C-alpha cells in the first residue's frame, strides 16, 4: 500500500519537475526529448535485428537437425559411436600420456575413429518382383550383393567396400515366430533370409555386416531387388564396360551366352541384369569373379550418376523414386537429399573401391570365403580411422 502511494507521489513529482524545467530551461527539455526519441528508435531497430537473427538461426538449426538425424540413425549402437571419453592417466615414471578411449595403436601408429564418416549398406537381394513382406522363417531372400558405401567429409571422398556373399561370419538364427535361437557360422548373404523380408531382414543383415566390420556404425541401408538393375542402368543411359568374363542370360531354362569375355559391351536392361547377376555355380570361385564384375559395373555406374547429377541435382532422387517399389530403405527423402548434396562433389574412382581379401574354400555343400583378418583390420583403419598426430 505504501508503495502505491509512493509511486503516485513520484509521478506527481516528475510532472511538477517537468513543468518547472520547461519554464526554467526549455533548451534542456528539447535536448531530453530528442534523446528520448533516439532511444526509442534504437530499441525498435534492436528488436528488428533480433527477429532477423532469430529467423536466420532457425534456418541453420533446421539444416543441422537433418544432418544430426543421419548421424544418430545408427542401427545397432556400437561402442565406437559414443563420444570419446578423455581418460586422463596419472603420469607414469616414463611419460605423461593421455590415451583416449576408442583409440587403436597399430604398428606404432595411433589411430582415432573418424566421427564424421557416414556409412551405408547397399544390398542386392535375389528377388525379381516388387518388395513384399513375407512370413517369418527363411524366406526373406539372400543378400547376394553387399556393398558398404562410406562418405568421408574430411577428405571429401566416397569409398565402396565390396563384401563377398560367401564370407563366413556369425549369423543370427531366428525361428518361424521371429524369436532369436542362436548364432551359427555361415555365409553372410544368408542373414537377410531371416525375418519378414523387409525392414527386419535388412536390420539383421546390417547387424551381420557391422559385426564383421568390428561393430563399425552403419547410418542407413538400402536393399534393392536384383530385378531393378535393368531400370537403374537405363536411367543413366546404359553402362559401357569391357566384359571380364563370359556371361549367360539369367533365365535358367535358356542358359544362352550373351556376353563374351573381352567384348566391349553397352549394358542396358536385361543385359545389365545378366552382367551383374549371373554366376556359374558349378565353377569354383564364381562369387569372387562376379564381385569383380559388380565392382567394375558400380565404378562406371557411379561416375555416370555423378555426371547426370551435375546436370540435374534432383537426378538421384528421381532414380530412387523409379525403383522405390523394389527397394527397402530406412533413409528418408530428406536424408537422401542431404547425402546427394554433399556426395555429388566427392572424388571417386577405382582406387576407392575395395574388396576384402581372403580365401575361398569348398564347404560341405557351398563355397566358404574366409576373410583375411589382418587385411580387414588394416582396411578398416584406412577407411574409417585417421592417424593421430603425436
Amino acid at each position: 500500500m505504501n508503495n502505491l502511494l509512493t509511486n503516485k507521489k513520484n509521478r506527481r513529482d516528475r510532472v511538477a519537475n517537468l513543468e518547472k524545467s520547461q519554464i526554467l530551461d526549455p533548451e534542456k527539455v528539447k535536448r531530453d526529448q530528442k534523446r528520448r526519441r533516439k532511444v526509442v528508435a534504437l530499441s525498435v531497430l534492436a528488436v528488428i535485428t533480433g527477429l532477423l537473427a532469430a529467423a536466420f538461426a532457425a534456418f541453420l538449426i533446421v539444416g543441422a537437425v537433418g544432418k544430426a538425424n543421419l548421424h544418430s540413425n545408427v542401427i545397432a549402437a556400437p561402442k565406437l559411436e559414443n563420444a570419446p571419453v578423455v581418460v586422463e592417466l596419472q603420469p607414469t615414471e616414463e611419460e605423461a600420456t593421455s590415451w583416449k578411449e576408442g583409440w587403436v595403436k597399430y604398428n606404432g601408429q595411433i589411430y582415432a575413429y573418424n566421427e564424421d564418416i557416414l556409412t551405408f549398406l547397399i544390398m542386392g537381394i535375389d528377388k525379381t518382383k516388387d518388395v513384399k513382406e513375407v512370413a517369418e522363417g527363411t524366406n526373406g531372400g539372400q543378400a547376394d550383393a553387399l556393398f558398404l558405401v562410406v562418405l568421408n567429409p574430411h577428405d571429401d571422398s566416397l569409398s565402396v567396400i565390396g563384401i563377398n556373399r560367401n564370407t563366413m561370419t556369425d549369423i543370427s538364427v531366428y525361428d518361424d515366430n521371429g524369436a532369436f535361437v542362436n548364432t551359427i557360422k555361415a555365409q553372410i548373404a544368408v542373414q537377410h533370409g531371416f525375418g519378414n523380408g523387409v525392414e527386419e531382414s535388412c536390420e539383421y543383415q546390417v547387424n551381420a555386416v557391422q559385426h564383421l566390420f568390428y561393430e563399425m556404425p552403419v547410418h542407413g541401408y538400402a536393399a534393392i531387388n536384383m530385378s531393378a538393375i535393368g531400370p537403374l542402368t537405363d536411367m543413366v543411359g546404359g553402362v559401357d564396360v569391357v566384359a571380364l568374363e563370359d556371361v549367360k542370360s539369367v533365365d535358367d531354362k535358356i542358359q544362352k551366352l550373351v556376353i563374351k569375355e573381352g567384348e566391349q559391351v553397352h549394358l542396358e536392361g536385361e543385359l545389365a541384369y545378366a552382367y551383374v547377376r549371373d554366376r556359374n555355380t558349378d565353377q569354383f570361385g564364381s562369387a569372387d569373379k562376379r564381385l569383380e564384375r559388380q565392382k567394375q559395373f558400380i565404378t562406371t555406374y557411379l561416375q555416370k550418376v555423378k555426371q547426370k547429377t551435375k546436370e540435374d541435382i534432383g537426378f538421384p532422387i528421381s532414380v530412387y523414386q523409379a525403383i522405390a517399389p523394389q527397394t527397402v530403405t530406412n533413409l528418408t527423402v530428406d536424408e537422401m537429399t542431404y547425402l546427394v548434396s554433399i556426395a555429388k562433389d566427392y572424388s571417386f574412382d577405382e582406387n576407392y573401391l575395395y574388396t576384402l581379401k581372403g580365401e575361398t574354400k569348398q564347404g560341405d555343400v557351398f563355397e566358404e570365403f574366409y576373410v583375411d583378418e589382418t587385411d580387414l583390420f588394416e582396411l578398416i583403419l584406412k577407411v574409417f580411422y585417421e592417424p593421430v598426430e603425436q
Partner: protein
Amino acid sequence: MRCVKDKGITKQIMKKKWIKMISGCLSMLLIMGILIGCGSSNTDNREDTTGTEEQTPAGASEVEEENRTGLQFETAKDGRIDFTVLQEENPEIWGWLYIPGTDIDRPLLQSATSDTYYQDHMADGQEGETGALYIEIPNQTNLCDFNTVIHGKDQKEGDLFYELHKFEEPDFFNEHEALYIYTPDNVYTYSIYAAYYDEGSDILRRYDYTTYQGCNAYLADYYDRRDMAMNKRDGWEDLTAGHFLLTLDGTTTGDRQFIVMAGLVNAGVANMDRMIFDGTDFVYDFEDEE
C-alpha cells in the same frame, strides 16, 4: 508544497544505494564460496577416518615400518598382508588385490547379506560414496569359481578401479601382466589377458558358470568379440570351462562397462577344484534351404 530535493544529495543517496547492493552481492558470493569449499573437502579418503582405536596421533608416528598394518597402512608391496588386523577392523575382508603399475593395492570384501552393500560402504564398513572392492554372494572367496567378478567404481579420479583404465592403453597393457590376490593362507597369481568395454548387463548372471554349456557359451561370446580397441594378450586363445577366471568390473554407464579379464596361472598352496555340471543342451535343427 513539496521541497525540491537537492540534486547533489539525491546523487549521494543513490550512490549509497548502489554501494549497499554491490556489497550485499559480494558478501553473498563470499558465503556461497565458503560453503562450496567446505562441501568439497568432505570427500575424505579413508586416511582421515579409519585406523584402530588404540592408535593415537603420537602412537602412529612411533610405529615401525615393519608393523604398518590395518586398513590405513597395509600394502602388498612388501609381499605380506596381515589379515588378523584387517579382519578386526572388518571381518568381511577376505582378500587383498594388488596390481603392480596401478594404485590398486586394496582389500577385497564380501557382504554376507547384500550384493550391493559395498557399493556405498567402504572397506572399514563406514558409509562412503567411494565404496569398496567386493565380490557378490554367489562367488566363493576360495576363487574356485569359473568366473569371479570383482566390482569397483571406475568413473572418476579417486575411484578404486579408476586406474584399471590404464589397461586401455596398448603399451601399458603389454607391459603389465601380473595381478595378485592375497588371502589369509595363500597368494594367487593371475595373468591379465584382456581389457575392453563390455555390454552393460550383469556378468555374473549372464551365463550359468556352473555348467559346461554356460561356460562354453561365455567363452564363445568372448572369442566372437570383434572390437578395434580391445586389448588382448597372446597365448590366451584356448580357454575352457576348466579355467579359473577373474573379471575386474567397473561401473555400468549407459549400456556398457569397462572390464579387465585375468586368468589364474599360479594357485600357490591352494588346491583349486570345483564341480562342473552337464546342463541340458538345446540344439536347433537348422535345415539348409539354399
